[in-house]
């Protein structure tokens, strides 16, 4: 095929490495990313006038950040780079891309989706108060804006990011008031053997915990979060049940909450890829083969948007998906390189399985949420309304509950309420969460400006 049209969505570690492999094979992919600079989530680059060094920004990951940035920059004009461009729909082998208020339909022969992940959150009474942010937001405030989300922060949730962000706050001179983890010590131990697949990563985690302890940051495990306290103006504390079952309060001015990550899978859905429920992470994920081929012939998936394996795995997956694409386009691939990459993926998968075991999504908490809790921030739908749509209206499936209650129809498209609402629907009809179905992706994946210029440019 002469000059196949290849589009990559996402300029994070996965998209960067995929583009690199394609360019090395003499192709010229188009790379679309919503951000103004490459790097993706973990290696997010600050605004150009910020002068902090890689070491200050990325800590132990500085060398990797530098390498990924350099790899992307080295591609130069051998790729067509479209920054600040939102991929908002996919239809008939065309990607609809929006820059400013102008949208264009880009035809492709092969498409690689590498859109990464967002925080996975569990709603909580009071979580819409100003001062309550996602863990990712707490980190972004620190990294990209050089400020903390508050003076006295409680970090709440579970997962490696919980401890990492707490540590980063401590290092930046904002020692957190506490780290409240919903996982138990026992669960964390049970993940150890699998996490040993990547001893270096595991060691980093152990060091981080030790540093928090030395810094005097209280770490409480096996907690049940109950409420973010405060008023319309802000946060003044958290209420939770500790491991012994006693109810406690802790004063703070901000909360950072998150339960590991949630794959950004809407685009794969719009491209028509098949999904399956992954019980280890309790999420519906787009199906791929060991190379990153989706169920659609010309759609490939890599990085955290397909499987939550972390940043190093995202680089490997990006390379593999590019190899698969090249092979399918008739380019010969070196079998040894592919085998090596696949072995690395297996290690990453083992490690991620350990993480999922050590820091499980506390899905049962959704069933306990008081009826008055806002589940959907966008449309202000409460847990009670959602339950009523299941029991009174007979909507035993999350998309029907969505049609009745509008949960997940708001501007965020269910990114923050989708997983919890599946749990609430499942619990309300006493079914398993797989049976409650998954919220299907819809275009546009993010809100478009009202004055959108048409794809023929005429508005």
């Amino acid at each position, binding site marked *: 095929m002469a000059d196949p049209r290849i589009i990559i969505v996402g300029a994070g570690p996965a998209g960067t490495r995929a583009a690199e492999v394609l360019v090395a094979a003499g192709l010229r992919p188009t790379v679309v990313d919503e951000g103004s600079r490459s790097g993706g989530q973990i290696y997010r680059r600050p605004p150009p006038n910020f002068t902090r060094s890689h070491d200050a920004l990325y800590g132990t990951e500085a060398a990797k950040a530098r390498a990924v940035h350099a790899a992307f920059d080295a591609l130069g004009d051998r790729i067509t780079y479209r920054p600040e461009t939102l991929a908002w729909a996919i239809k008939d082998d065309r990607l609809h891309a929006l820059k400013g208020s102008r949208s264009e339909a880009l035809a492709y022969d092969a498409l690689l989706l590498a859109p990464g992940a967002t925080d996975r959150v569990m709603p909580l009474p009071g979580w819409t108060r*100003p001062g309550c942010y996602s863990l990712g937001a707490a980190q972004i405030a620190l990294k990209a804006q050089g400020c903390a989300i508050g003076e006295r922060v409680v970090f709440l949730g579970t997962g490696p990011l919980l401890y990492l962000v707490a540590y980063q706050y401590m290092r930046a001179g904002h020692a957190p008031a506490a780290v409240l983890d919903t996982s138990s010590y026992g669960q964390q131990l049970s993940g150890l053997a699998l996490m040993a697949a990547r001893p270096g990563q595991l060691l980093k985690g152990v060091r981080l915990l030790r540093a928090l302890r030395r810094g005097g940051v209280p770490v409480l495990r096996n907690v049940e979060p109950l409420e973010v306290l405060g008023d319309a*103006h802000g946060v003044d504390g958290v209420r939770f049940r500790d491991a012994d079952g006693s109810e406690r309060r802790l004063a703070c001015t901000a909360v950072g909450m998150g339960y590991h990550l949630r794959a950004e899978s809407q685009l794969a859905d719009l491209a028509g890829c098949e999904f399956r429920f992954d019980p280890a992470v309790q999420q519906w994920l787009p199906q791929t083969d060991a190379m990153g081929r989706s169920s659609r012939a010309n759609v490939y998936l890599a990085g955290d948007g397909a499987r939550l394996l972390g940043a190093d795995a995202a680089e490997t997956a990006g390379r593999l998906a590019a190899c698969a694409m090249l092979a399918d386009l008739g380019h010969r691939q070196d079998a040894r390189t592919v085998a090596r990459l696949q072995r690395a993926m297996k290690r990453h998968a083992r490690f991620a399985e350990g993480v999922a075991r050590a820091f499980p999504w506390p899905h049962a908490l959704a069933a306990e949420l008081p009826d008055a809790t806002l589940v959907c921030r966008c449309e202000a739908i409460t847990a009670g309304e959602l339950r009523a749509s299941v029991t009174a209206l007979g909507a035993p499936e999350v998309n029907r509950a969505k049609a009745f209650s509008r949960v997940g129809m708001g501007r965020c498209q269910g990114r923050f309420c989708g997983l919890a609402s599946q749990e609430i629907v499942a619990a309300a009809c006493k079914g398993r969460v797989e049976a409650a179905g998954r919220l299907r992706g819809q275009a546009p994946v993010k809100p478009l400006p009202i004055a959108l210029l048409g794809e023929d440019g005429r508005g």
Partner: protein
Amino acid sequence: MTIDGACVEVLEGDTVLTALMMHRGFAGHSPFGDGRRAGFCMMGACQDCWVWTGEGDRLRACSSPIQDGMDIRTEAPKGLWPIPG
């Protein structure tokens, strides 16, 4: 730049959301009357930080860098139709 008409000093490279949190403590009001909102994800995903400009345009505060002379409003400027964002 100005926020709700008051002149504020901001740092170059800050986002509109950072400026709002420094000077106002929130970004807007929930359209459903359940109180103030101040963003949640800071990465353009939750859509909880949309604000207005004096001209009646809407923008997502966490992904909009500050520009000189910006006129940001936490409520729709008077005289405009209340278009939901």
